[in-house]
């Protein structure tokens, strides 16, 4: 009965000041929603990065490339490749017994800011065994045939984003994404031969063509540039400068390698990093480093979220102290009726606990439902495969911090009541 009365008093106090109660709960919930979003998006990013890195343990790139640059440009389609690599390296790797599969990567053009990547049919079959759409007459096993260098295979989300279907034609811009010298390349159009099923990785945002098409474009490009320079007497053709990184005949941007085991990866990394005109990077190691940076970013965002939470909790505490002042007379009356300090203090403590717990609960629910609601949008635009109902570590830390802070605030409020001489306060009125 005593407990029921204490809860009744708490509910009454909440009803009496429902506006402040709701605002307090919402403030905590908002801060917590932010924390949930940060935790899940960072986790989604890291998961996407790690999953993508699992397929190809080794990348061989041009000499002088940094590990991060190689991984970013080859796996995630971010950043430009640094120079070119001899195609013979790919052929040599393909014959190596420690290699289960090797795929040449040639990068040059882009479409609407998306890099167009030159690969072969084996690579397409390796990342996606099935297609959403495939043009009639296109062989499943040889979708990027050497017979038709105008064929393009699109990642699921790129096709969706730009409304491209099989048979549609598009023209790339010559030059890497972000090149100041990039320009339209209307004389070499691509036709969508197939659209891959979603693989929930950067491949969904990729455009693939035959790597030999990249060679052909640059062969034509070189001839045009030479012709232009000869006829016009120009030393450098604007728009064709700075293309020394583009793979021409016999060159590729990088080679993706699958190995028989981690020892082979390690050996090959060492061999191809020392004086062979190439650089090799262990993808897992590099991605781990990238994820560590992400974790640092998560921690920074987490600290910001915790800071916000603590400010909100301090505000809640101030409103509770104001409520205590408002209720001083009523508390004095309770004391005169023989209701103990402890019982009165419990009403304030429970109220504070309710505010923090409801705030945390509402924040978690709102945060996860918000992620669930925006998942398609985030997936579509950023390529981050979120798990909306995954419970991130930062959330657990947030819950512990909020509840402990809430309890400390509740205890402080309780002490304030406990040490307040209510009767003397009233007697002095």
């Amino acid at each position, binding site marked *: *009965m*005593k407990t029921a*009365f204490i809860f*009744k*008093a708490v*509910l*009454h*106090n909440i009803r*009496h000041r429902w506006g402040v109660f709701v605002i307090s709960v919402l403030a905590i919930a908002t801060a917590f929603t932010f924390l949930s979003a940060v935790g899940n998006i960072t986790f989604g990013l890291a998961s996407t990065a790690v999953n993508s890195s699992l397929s190809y343990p080794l990348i061989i790139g041009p000499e002088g490339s940094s590990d991060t640059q190689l991984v970013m440009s080859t796996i995630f389609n971010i950043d430009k490749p640094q120079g070119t690599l001899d195609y013979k390296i790919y052929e040599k790797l393909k014959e190596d017994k420690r290699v289960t599969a090797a795929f040449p990567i040639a990068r040059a053009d882009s479409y609407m800011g998306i890099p167009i990547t030159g690969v072969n049919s084996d690579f397409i079959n390796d990342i996606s065994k099935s297609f959403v759409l495939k043009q009639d007459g296109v062989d499943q096993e040889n979708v990027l045939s050497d017979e038709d260098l105008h064929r393009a295979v699109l990642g699921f989300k790129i096709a969706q984003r730009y409304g491209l279907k099989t048979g549609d034609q598009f023209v790339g811009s010559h030059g890497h994404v972000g090149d100041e010298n990039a320009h339209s390349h209307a004389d070499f159009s691509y036709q969508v031969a197939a659209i891959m099923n979603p693989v929930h990785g950067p491949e969904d945002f990729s455009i693939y063509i035959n790597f030999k098409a990249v060679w052909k474009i640059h062969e034509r490009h070189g001839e045009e540039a030479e012709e232009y320079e000869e006829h016009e007497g120009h030393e450098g053709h604007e728009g064709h400068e700075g293309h020394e990184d583009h793979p021409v005949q016999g060159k590729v941007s990088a080679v993706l390698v699958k190995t028989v085991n981690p020892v082979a990866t390690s050996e090959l990394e060492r061999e191809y990093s020392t004086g062979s005109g190439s650089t090799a990077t262990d993808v897992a190691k590099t991605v781990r480093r990238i994820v560590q940076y992400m974790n640092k970013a998560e921690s920074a965002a987490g600290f910001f979220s915790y800071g916000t939470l603590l400010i909100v909790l301090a505000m809640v505490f101030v409103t509770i102290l104001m409520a205590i002042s408002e209720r001083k*007379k*009523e508390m004095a*009356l*309770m*004391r*005169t*009726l*023989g*209701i*103990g*300090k*402890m*019982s009165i203090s419990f009403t304030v403590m429970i109220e504070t606990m309710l505010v923090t717990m409801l705030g945390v609960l509402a924040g978690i629910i709102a945060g996860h439902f918000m992620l669930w609601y925006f998942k398609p949008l985030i997936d579509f635009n950023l390529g981050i495969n979120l798990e909306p109902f995954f419970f991130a570590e930062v959330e657990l830390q947030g819950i512990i911090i909020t509840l402990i802070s809430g309890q400390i605030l509740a205890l402080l409020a309780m002490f304030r009541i406990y040490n307040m*001489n209510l*009767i*003397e306060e009233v*007697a*002095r009125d």
Partner: protein
Amino acid sequence: MNLVLQNISKKFKNPDGGDLEILKDLSIDLKSGSVLRLKGPSGSGKTTFMNIVSGLILPDSGSILADKIEITRLSEGDRDRFRAENIGYIFQTFNLLSPFSVIENIYAPLAFAGKLPADYKLKALEILKEVGLGGLENRMPYHLSVGQRQRVSVARVLFANPSLILADEPTASLDAVSAKTVFDSITKCRKNGATVVLASHDRIFDDFKADLVYDFENGRIL
């Protein structure tokens, strides 16, 4: 309840830092079932006296013996329990707990003390009828008139059936009907054997025979 106060003194601090002596060496011996009437102007110390007797505040010196229990030696929690179980306090105003309904206000103090009788609801309803508030048991205090509120606080005292009643201007600002109800209730408690300490300027209590009168203005027993 037998009440023996010996050499009770109480000072408060003035805003200017000086001492304001409210009670000085006050000694009163009150037998069980008797009535002590307190007289004196506002601010003379009547309420402070009641707060000390109830154990709400402690005197600076002196002792209070209530049926052999030395109140000044009880812990704060024990004084709370003692008050809930033995004392009925009726104030001029400010007397109901706003979170609770009329009936809950009646049994709240004993509920918090964990001393509710088995048939508490039935008993509370009977007392409400007795003070003319039958049918209003589920109303909230803020839906009642001033007179009705005071009758609820009297009903609370009747429900607890305390051995000591402290009534501080219990009929001030009340209409005649409510004042009569309060008067009848205090009279009933007295007949039941409760000791009564009353401070009132209301003429309704002119016929309420006191065994002892203490005048705070002169600091003397009349």
